[in-house]
């Protein structure tokens, strides 16, 4: 028998599937031929090692999964989960973004003073300047009017001792200079006035002005907002009836100051986005003890029709 022929029989030989005569021939050849011996050792070892792979315990919920798949409602259910799946990524993505922000914060060693605040703008935010198309952009869904407590902000009078107020109280909707609003703290007790349409992210409405609705989500949402600055709603945007929702992610320092701000959801109008980023940077949250940096997403919806 030639070496080649012998080696071709290895596979059947290892399985004991050769008839006794052939088997004897192979054995005899192996005892005389060191080359084939070495070949055989390797071949045999490779098979042995494959056979030694352990059995893996199937997932304990496998039958549950199968049952869900075979129930009469399964088709719609599976379709729904398939649709819903992308939503479930919101949380991790959000957490990831927070981590990225925090790392960025450390890397640039932000000194938490407003002057030195660094604002990171991410994503190419297109500046749409087309005059046509009604110039109406609505990113994000519109809030139904009247859903939130109808008057702007319920001024929260009881001053907590030891907490400085940055701004004097001013009635909301009195757009002096367009900038500063001092709505005070939003009512805090019945938390979160959640707007649950995003599933994972629930927003608490913090202020509802004539043209802007502001709400907040994330770990920071339980903190009082000591100073709220309403973003400027540029006149051109009002005139052209530009609407949009901007979401800005921010990292809030223990002192209550806002560290880094990042456009999270663009309105597709860079000027609007920028105005929001700028305004949020001025916000001031209730200070906390400890060194925890908290993240939050502030959503601001511009709505000209509210006027």
């Amino acid at each position: 028998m030639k070496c080649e022929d012998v080696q071709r029989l290895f596979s059947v030989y290892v399985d004991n599937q050769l008839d006794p005569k052939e088997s004897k021939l192979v054995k005899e050849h192996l005892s005389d031929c060191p080359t084939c011996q070495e070949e055989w050792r390797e071949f045999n070892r490779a098979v042995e090692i494959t056979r030694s792979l352990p059995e893996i315990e199937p997932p304990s919920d496998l039958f549950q999964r199968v049952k869900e798949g075979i129930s009469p409602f399964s088709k719609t259910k599976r379709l729904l989960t398939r649709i819903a799946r992308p939503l479930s990524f919101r949380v991790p993505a959000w957490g990831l973004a927070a981590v990225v922000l925090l790392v960025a914060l450390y890397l640039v060693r932000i000194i938490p003073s407003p002057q030195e605040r660094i604002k990171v703008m991410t994503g190419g935010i297109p500046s749409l300047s087309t005059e046509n198309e009604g110039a109406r952009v609505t990113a994000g869904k519109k809030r139904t009017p009247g859903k939130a407590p109808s008057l702007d902000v319920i001024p929260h009078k009881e001053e907590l001792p030891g907490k400085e107020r940055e701004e004097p109280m001013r009635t909301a909707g009195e757009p002096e200079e367009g900038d500063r609003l001092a709505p005070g703290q939003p009512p805090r007790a019945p938390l979160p006035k959640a707007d649950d349409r995003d599933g994972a992210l629930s927003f608490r409405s913090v202020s509802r002005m004539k043209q802007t609705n502001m709400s907040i989500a994330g770990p920071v949402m339980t903190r009082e907002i000591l100073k709220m600055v309403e973003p400027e709603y540029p006149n051109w945007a009002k005139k052209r009836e530009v609407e949009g929702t901007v979401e800005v992610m921010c990292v809030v320092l223990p002192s209550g100051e806002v560290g880094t701000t990042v456009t999270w959801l663009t309105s597709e109008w860079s000027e609007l986005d920028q105005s929001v980023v700028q305004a949020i940077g001025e916000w001031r949250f209730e200070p906390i003890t400890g060194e925890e940096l908290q993240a939050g997403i502030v959503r601001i919806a511009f709505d000209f029709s509210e006027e």
Partner: protein
Amino acid sequence: MRNNLPVDQDTPLIRRFQEGDGSAFEELFITYQSKVFNTAYRMLGNYEDARDMAQDVFIRAHKSLRRFRGDSRFYTWLYRITVNSCINKLKSQKTTVSFSDCDESWERTKSPLSWSPNRGPIKRLEEKELQRHVQNGINSLPGRYRSVIVLRDIQGLRYQEIAEVLGCSLEAVRSSLYRARQELRRELKGIMPLIMNGGKK
């Protein structure tokens, strides 16, 4: 040829199922879940895919079992669904690179020769490491080769049964098994010195 095969032990259960007894399916599931899952696991190379695949296979089996006429034995039929679904999945995966692929190819680039000799408490870890290399070796084979190796060397099916699962001749099983094993052995060449008789050269 089929007549030479032993009677399908699952026939009573299948009959019960076809007569409307839902619990019969659960019994079949319990008997075969590990086989289906492990076949998928070794063929696809990762846990999540194997879990989804096993789920899919049983759902499919459930759907088709009413029309199952016993032309083949139940378990070879179940293996056939599993293997074919896995091969299809592998084909569709070719165009997309999944994270686990990246992961594995990354792992593969780590030199197996950097292991320390297998002595003492490290041994278990090395066993795991070794298993991963073997799995990576399987992962590098084309789907057809993976299936014969998994069916024969991991599931322990006989040639006749493999032929039934794959719908091919005994001779085809023999030759593809030979080629698949040679291929796998080539893939494991790098770690051969380590797996030969427990680390001895």
